[in-house]
């Protein structure tokens, strides 16, 4: 038997195509670069900060509330000024980014895992389990996120772990609902029938066959949700209910400087605010492009 002709379409894995399409949009590339800068700044904060803002030995309260550009004792400059404790704003922002991003990413990843598992199994097995899970999701999504977070913090108390728990609790419902919608559509496809015909176990079918095909919308939701989680955590910290003072995120930094806003010392709130804004905007730009790139109907 002679083999059928080996003519095959362009040799490109799905991943290569996604990357190629993504890079075609200059705005998205800009967003990605900005995001990379933010992430690198966060990771290498101890290395690039002129000063460790949480080492009390380095601080001098006499340096507090200095405007941007003021000279620093060790010869450099306080490029973005100092806050009311004498901390260098630039360093505080780098460390703050670290915490904000870490909390945002960890809570998103955990919520994603929980939401995916619940949503997929609900869609695949259906019946009462699905009804139960989806009603819980509906109830949760009808409350404002901030309200749920506040109630949880009030019940659990403050602390980094508690904040992350609150963020996870608020977010998992989005993932569960989105993935269930995608899974209901994919479930009826013939390759799913083929998997059942081959007598594969339900666990294998759900995680090996169903999950990878439901991921594209999830990647978009997750990317946007990281930004939302960061914003929510910043809100909580601003209200004084979020992370403790020993681990100040950008939100807390903004809160610290709030009282000085109208008396001319804008930089204590303003620059952390800008940093937060840049972070969220870059994440959203990347997420937007990812959504277009991963949508099969928009492909040429």
């Amino acid at each position, binding site marked *: *038997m*002679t*083999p*059928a002709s*080996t*003519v*095959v*379409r*362009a*040799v*490109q*894995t*799905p991943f290569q195509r996604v990357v190629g399409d993504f890079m075609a949009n200059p705005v998205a590339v800009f967003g990605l670069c900005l995001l990379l800068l933010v992430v690198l700044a966060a990771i290498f904060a101890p290395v690039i900060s002129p000063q460790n803002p949480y080492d009390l030995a380095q601080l001098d309260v006499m340096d507090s509330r200095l405007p941007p550009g003021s000279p620093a004792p060790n010869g450099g400059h306080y490029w973005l000024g100092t806050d009311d404790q004498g901390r260098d704003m630039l360093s505080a922002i780098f460390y703050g980014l670290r915490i904000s991003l870490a909390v945002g990413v960890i809570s998103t990843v955990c919520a994603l895992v929980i939401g995916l598992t619940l949503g997929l199994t609900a869609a695949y097995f259906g019946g009462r389990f699905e009804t139960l899970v989806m009603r819980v999701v509906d109830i949760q999504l009808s409350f404002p996120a901030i309200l749920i977070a506040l109630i949880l913090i009030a019940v659990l108390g403050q602390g980094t772990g508690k904040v992350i728990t609150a963020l996870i609790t608020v977010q998992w419902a989005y993932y569960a609902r989105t993935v269930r919608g995608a899974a209901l559509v994919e479930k009826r*496809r*013939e*390759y799913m*029938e*083929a*998997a*059942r*015909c*081959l*007598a*594969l*176990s339900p666990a*294998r079918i759900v995680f*090996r*066959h169903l999950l*990878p*095909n439901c991921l594209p919308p999830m990647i978009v939701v997750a990317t946007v949700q990281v930004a939302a989680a960061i914003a929510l955590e910043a809100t909580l910290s601003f209200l004084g209910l979020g992370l403790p003072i020993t681990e100040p995120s950008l939100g807390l930094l903004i809160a610290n400087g709030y009282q000085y806003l109208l008396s001319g010392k804008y930089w204590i709130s303003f620059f952390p605010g800008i940093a937060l804004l840049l972070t969220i905007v870059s994440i959203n730009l990347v997420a937007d492009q990812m959504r277009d790139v991963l949508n099969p109907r928009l492909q040429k």
Partner: protein
Amino acid sequence: MTADVSALVELKGVSKRFVKSLDLAAKIGNRFGAGMKEEVVHAVDNVNLVVAPGEVVGLVGESGCGKSTLGRMTVGLLPLSSGERFWQGESLAGQDAGTARRQQLKMQMIFQDPYASLNPRMRVLDIVGEAPVAHGIIRGTQQVEYVGLMLNRVGLDPTLMRRYPHQFSGGQRARIGIARALAVKPQFLVCDESVAALDVSIQAQVLNLFMELKGALNLTYLFISHDLGVVKYISDRVVVMYLGRVVESAPSAELFAQPNHPYTQALLAEAGKVTPAKRTFVPIKGEIPSPLDPPSGCHFHPRCPHAMTKCREAVPPLIEIAPGQMSACFLNTP
């Protein structure tokens, strides 16, 4: 029920009902006398089917006739509403998980859509090799070699196994689907419109492949199709369905030479031959009825040129009119 031991696959009194039950609002409405009824679709209505080892049984009919549903029930993808399935004379109902799993592997399905029937995010190596490894037919270390063997058998270049489905043409994907089914060493294949989506020239290649595999691997086929030309070529026996019921069943040569049931006659008249003679199309009147609201008695009577009063009132039984030839029409029982 007892079954024919010489048959490979047998379906007895098999039916499939899709029920859209009343929701809470409708039930409340009924309390107030709204008179809403459950919607029941008799997709398959009391069908008997016997497939002998090594046979190719062609299952034909138009949309809504239930052939795809019947195919899925035969292979175990859809549960039966009533009736029983038999494999080599033994009932398949109530088997324990392990036996049921081993049984499932003996009956495989080749799907219609070469684009939708392969997981777009898996490489061909995994599409074909996953099940044999998962079921212990081969060891994980043997997967590459085994998949290569399967691909060769269906006429594909084994070096392509690390590619994704979207990098192949429709005909090649159809072959991958066949390789996937063959990898679990089945004895019985249900081909659900497997060549319908393919171009004529590729269709010929795939049909030839089916016949070669049948000979080489001792396979038995249930070949579902709406294309009478294909069915006539490949089948030993043909079963004709209309709106969930079998209307005629006969060896291929007899059915096409002397169709008995009026629906079969109409279907064959429309089949179309590629003879260079311009012809006038003589249409069969009426639309195919909706399965939600089928005609009473014989489902075909509104469109039948020979309909009698009896046909509206009673369901004609499937009776043997000649050796091996069955037909469900009151014209045969004067």
